[in-house]
């Protein structure tokens, strides 16, 4: 498997040499996005970076930041008769207070893994006697496709399709992190996919207001090394900015069309994040024009007030306060096979990545 050609390797060696030269004092960098967490682990970048550079995983896996009460809420709905729950695969094993979707499925609930919202729409057309509910879990990256599915459902007047939306927004979460007096992070690797949609302007307050530089980063080993180098150069040159490393995909203004789609269908709303609590205007709610396709309204879903499992420290891990290995459950009671917290379930969860690649 050719992950790098000779030129790439030469560039990587050049980046690493310069990183080693510039990293004269400790630098803590948080990668916000779960895809970065996995890419760093998969490429074993910690193994080649100098010890001064510490990479800390942040709250960038949408499955992981879904609050326990919201998990119990969708499990409650999935257990109702004549409901087909359509979800991305990562949600299947997320443990609720009493069970997971996987356990519900083995008891007879109809739960389907889909790869796009269009698959969920197709399910609804094919099963007119059933209610198809799509679980909308994600950041700005996937919100436009959910918005499109709601538009199509409205155009077709597809009455048996609805979305239970738990979508979250990256900038308010970054603000909540920056406001945390216990945060020990000097700079951020910002999410390449989410920023492809929103651009970098919504993140610039992090540099201006909180003095935290950030680089929007791609997902190859070379991208991540270059981004780390860009952060180091900012420090050496005394700059504090939000820059784009992932230029082939991310534009400063983002994807204006996708932003319009999100705005057309969703309005910002307060949302609960695991570990971070309630963050004002950090989630998306379905606008009244689409409320017939809002599963929470349609099924008059009750709110749950669940508490996270005892001893589970996913919340501290999401904020970068502790490494997974510092949680007493990690690797013993909590494994990808029998996960207790969601960070161990999602393939992009910090605990799952650290467990899979055996990072201490």
């Amino acid at each position, binding site marked *: 498997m050719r992950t790098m050609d000779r030129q790439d390797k030469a560039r*990587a060696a050049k980046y690493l040499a310069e990183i080693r030269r510039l990293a004269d004092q400790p630098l803590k960098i948080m990668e916000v996005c779960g895809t970065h967490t996995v890419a760093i*682990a998969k*490429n074993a970048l910690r193994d080649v970076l100098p010890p001064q550079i510490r990479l800390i995983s942040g709250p960038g896996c949408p499955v992981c930041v879904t609050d326990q009460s919201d998990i119990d809420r969708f499990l409650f709905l999935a257990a109702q008769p004549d409901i087909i729950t359509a979800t991305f695969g990562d949600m299947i*094993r997320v443990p609720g207070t009493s069970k997971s979707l996987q*356990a519900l499925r083995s008891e007879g609930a109809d739960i389907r893994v889909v790869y796009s919202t269009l698959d969920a729409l197709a399910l609804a057309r094919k099963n007119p006697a059933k209610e198809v509910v799509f679980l909308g879990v994600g950041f700005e990256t996937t919100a436009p496709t959910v918005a499109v599915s709601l538009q199509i459902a409205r155009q077709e007047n597809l009455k048996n399709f609805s979305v239970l939306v738990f979508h979250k927004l990256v900038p308010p979460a970054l603000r909540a992190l920056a406001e945390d007096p216990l945060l020990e992070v000097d700079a951020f690797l910002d999410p390449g996919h989410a920023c492809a949609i929103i651009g970098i302007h919504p993140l610039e307050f992090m540099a201006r207001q909180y003095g935290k530089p950030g680089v929007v980063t791609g997902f190859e*080993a070379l991208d991540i090394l270059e981004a780390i180098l860009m952060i180091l150069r900012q420090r050496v040159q005394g700059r504090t900015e939000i820059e784009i490393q992932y230029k082939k995909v991310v534009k400063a203004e983002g994807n204006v069309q996708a932003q319009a789609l999100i705005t057309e269908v969703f309005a910002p709303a307060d949302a609960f994040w695991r570990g971070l609590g309630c963050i004002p205007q950090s989630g998306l709610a379905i606008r009244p024009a689409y409320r017939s396709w809002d599963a929470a309204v349609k099924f008059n879903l009750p709110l749950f007030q669940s508490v996270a499992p005892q001893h589970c420290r996913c919340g501290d891990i999401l904020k970068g306060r502790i490494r997974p290995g510092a949680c007493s459950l990690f690797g013993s009671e909590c494994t990808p*096979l029998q996960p207790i917290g969601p960070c161990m379930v999602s393939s992009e969860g910090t605990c799952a990545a650290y467990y899979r*690649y055996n990072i201490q």
Partner: protein
Amino acid sequence: MEYITLAHGSGGRLSRHLIESLIAKHLGNPYLDQMNDAAILPSQHKIALTTDSFVISPLFFRGGDIGKLAVCGTVNDLTVSGAIPEYLTLALILEEGLAIADLERIIVSIAATARQARVRIVCGDTKVVERGNADKIYINTAGIGFLRTDVPVSPAQVKPGDVILINGTIGDHGIAVLADREGLEFETPVCSDCAPLNILVDQFFGPGVKCMRDPTRGGVGTILNEIARQADVGMILYEESLPVHPAVVGACDMLGLELLHLANEGKVLVIASPESADEILARMRGHELGRQAAKIGVVRAEDAGRVVMQTALSAKRIVGMLEGEHLPRIC
């Protein structure tokens, strides 16, 4: 109350737990307890015996179908145990409503694959269940083969310094089945690698072959971990030397799948003595089922029980076993 979930059938750790704690517990005997791909039975000729059930969805996929798979799966389990497959049984469980034409297509495929693999189907059984109680057709095959040598190939023979070889691209079957089931399109279509491996192993088998395994469910990563644990050795894989179809790598990135956990149905992992590895590799490459064969790693004493991957940047990471459900019903 505990229930069977799909993860119990995934070939990963939970499957193993179910087999050890429930099936082997009640059915155990010296032959079953060997827990290899085939039981080695006493006879004038040493005999290898194995059985396998096939429940794949969809029944027909790019590069194969459930019938071809049912022959190859059993032939390959015998083959990697060091046996020459001779006889197969065939048991069919059919769902009421299955089209006769589809059944005929499957039987024809079974016959063609059996001819290719030079095995005979010597007995069989057919049952039909009510509509809704099965998914069109399930197949079980059992097979008998004669051992090539008195000493069966096994992890017990694996030593530091041995070389790890594979006969071609990794993960094609897992992605081909997923693509057909989910309607995913790739620029270059990926076909299942489903093939009878005995015709390839005939070309290179010799005293230098220490251990062979076919990395089906659980993939290359899980199987190598099993061997490393059984043999109490470490293994290092070189990421750059892994043979892969570019579309498979793309699909893994897109869907968050681990290449080394994807199923294969026409691949054999061979652990060979260092002095014979080059000869075996050359013979593999001389056969149509081994054109892209490669040395992918070596066995070593350090990190016993672990498989480590060395990346293009010479960084190292652990290769784990498949945990829980990966892709449902791929074989």
